[in-house]
């Protein structure tokens, strides 16, 4: 349905989108997450034809953007766009609002009446036809915007922060609408900061940070891989001056050795989807000394994947098996590593997101 290849967009000296590539299959619900300024909205705008890319290609339904005017119009008929801010025309009724956009897509007034009824029913706005748009609540406006985007029955629905500013009930309603639309065969791309919703709804996720796509895969694969091209080793100086910010760092030599060990252990390509073991918890081990040995032990255990290494902390992901975890910890201690504690946390999209975007400030 949607294929993006080596997309680049700069605004002056700042590279807002830096060589990203991904695909969204027909009928899937793709989530786009990232911190503010990561490049999500810029990417969405390029997909919808609101911004021209500097380089790279965008192919929607087999048609490449940037072609002739006819191709451009054909692409626009495939897309329904829901922006992050619902724009309102004052003194305009809901039915007139729908009719206006219907007339743009060449739908006759006679057909619009029935279509409006059906679409308003789909988004739970039945009976609101004669109300003025600017008198609706924010949640209703957002749902009306979704109805408007569906007028021409687009194959691809692109939504920029559809749940932004909505109260919890409205968020749940929006989520139900999206799941409903997906079940009707629509391909949907949504960008959102609400990771719990993304994790629940989406088939696949793309995580952006500072213009780059740091991870893109199905939710299951992302969580099961754990470390995805972002295994971090905090370099710096070992703690000698009592400064907390430097105490937690490793020396450049130690970092090089650890990275070499991790490179054999981690997954460097953000698109790998095969061969994943089901790993769904993360363990942060606080090690006072000999962390290199702990990394070596992690390499020897098949079910363990290293996520990050700091001077006194090793984070790994593994399957939720108490006995297995116990054996791993015991082996780490047996090899001479002095531990002063460890904790376990469930690997979810939020922890993945925080880990992968930790360099963006």
């Amino acid at each position: 349905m949607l294929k993006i290849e080596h997309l680049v967009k700069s605004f002056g000296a700042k590279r807002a989108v830096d060589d990203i590539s991904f695909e969204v299959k027909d009928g899937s619900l793709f989530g786009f997450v990232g911190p503010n300024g990561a490049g999500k909205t810029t990417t969405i705008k390029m997909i919808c034809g609101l911004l021209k890319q500097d380089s790279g290609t965008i192919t929607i339904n087999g048609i490449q953007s940037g072609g002739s005017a006819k191709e451009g119009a054909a692409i626009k008929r495939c897309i329904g766009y829901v922006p992050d801010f619902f724009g309102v025309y004052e003194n305009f009724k809901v039915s007139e609002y729908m009719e206006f956009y219907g007339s743009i897509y060449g739908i006759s007034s006679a057909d619009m009446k029935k279509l409006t009824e059906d679409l308003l029913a789909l988004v739970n706005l039945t009976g609101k036809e004669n109300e003025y748009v600017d008198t609706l609540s924010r949640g209703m406006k957002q749902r009306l915007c979704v109805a408007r985007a569906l007028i021409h029955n687009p194959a691809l629905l692109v939504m920029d922060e559809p749940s932004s500013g909505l109260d919890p009930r409205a968020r749940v309603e929006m989520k139900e609408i999206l799941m409903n639309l997906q079940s009707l065969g629509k391909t949907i791309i949504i960008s959102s900061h609400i990771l719990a919703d993304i994790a629940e709804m989406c088939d696949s996720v793309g995580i952006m940070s500072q213009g780059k796509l740091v991870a893109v895969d199905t939710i299951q694969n992302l969580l099961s891989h754990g470390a995805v091209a972002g295994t971090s080793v905090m370099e710096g100086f070992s703690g000698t001056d009592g400064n907390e910010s430097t105490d937690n760092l490793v020396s450049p030599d130690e970092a090089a050795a650890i990275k070499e060990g991790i490179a054999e252990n981690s997954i460097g390509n953000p698109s790998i989807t095969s061969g994943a073991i089901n790993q769904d918890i993360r363990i942060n081990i606080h090690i006072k000394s000999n962390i290199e040995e702990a990394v070596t032990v992690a390499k020897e255990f098949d079910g363990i994947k290293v996520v990050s290494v700091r001077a006194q902390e090793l984070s790994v992901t593994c399957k939720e098996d108490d006995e297995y975890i116990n054996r791993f910890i015991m082996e780490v201690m047996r090899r001479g590593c002095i531990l002063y504690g460890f904790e376990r946390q469930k690997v979810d999209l939020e922890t993945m997101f925080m880990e992968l975007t930790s360099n963006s400030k």
Partner: protein
Amino acid sequence: MLKINPVMQKDLRITSRNARFYWGLFAYEAILAIGFYVVFKIVLGINSYNSRYYDVTDVYRSFISFFPALMAIQAGIITIIIPVMTGSAITDEKGHQTFDILRTTPLSCTRIVTGKIMSSVIRTMTFVIAGIPIMAFSFIVGGLNWIHLPIFLLITIVYSFMLGSLGVMCSAYSKKTTGAIVKAYIIYILLYVLSFIPFGFGQLYASKLFSYFFLCANPIVLYVNFLMAIVGEGSIFAYLYEHQTIGLPAVMCSFWVTTAVSLVIMILLSILYIKIASRKINPLKGKE
């Protein structure tokens, strides 16, 4: 069947529900009526002063001046209000966050721009047509040709279209409505003033054709030309021809030819402004 521009239809519908439109119409009629009254008093005053020297036919002839006076007042009002109407054409859409949605539809940028222009022209012509009953007083005394009213309406429509397209172009290039209005007024002034310059140089360098077309592009010249034709003084170009300040064939200086050339130039300028505005708002062509 002619497809109505959806943007034009939407703008007219929204405007017609706004009380500001009706207050504007009231103000327009009030200004026209006051203008008519002032001209009436002036004409009566001149005639009563000169009553010893003129007979009654001269008095009736002087009443013919109502029509040009009202025409000039309307042209002045239109020149002021159209930038205000069209200055917000694109900036308001951006402000309401509806502009991006519009640009993701198959509606071309040219259709968006022409829809905005047409809605402003229709609103302006609503004002002008509503002023016809006041202008009709001029016809009571006779001396006016029936053709003058439709010519006036045609000139006003083309002039409004040119001003509207200029206003929308300025709106496309501005972030705020105020900025768009100021830009439009500046371009007007440049158009009115600079179009006389080649005429001045024409006298020195004998480039008469060049100055002729520049003069034709000036809306003030167009209206003065029409005004002179109404009061029976020929045309401004005929005057210049007689005084040998413009060395062109007589036929090119006739009222009909100069009016036609002026209208064509205004239409061409309008097309140019529309093209510039469409290109600016096209996200795949214009600069961000």
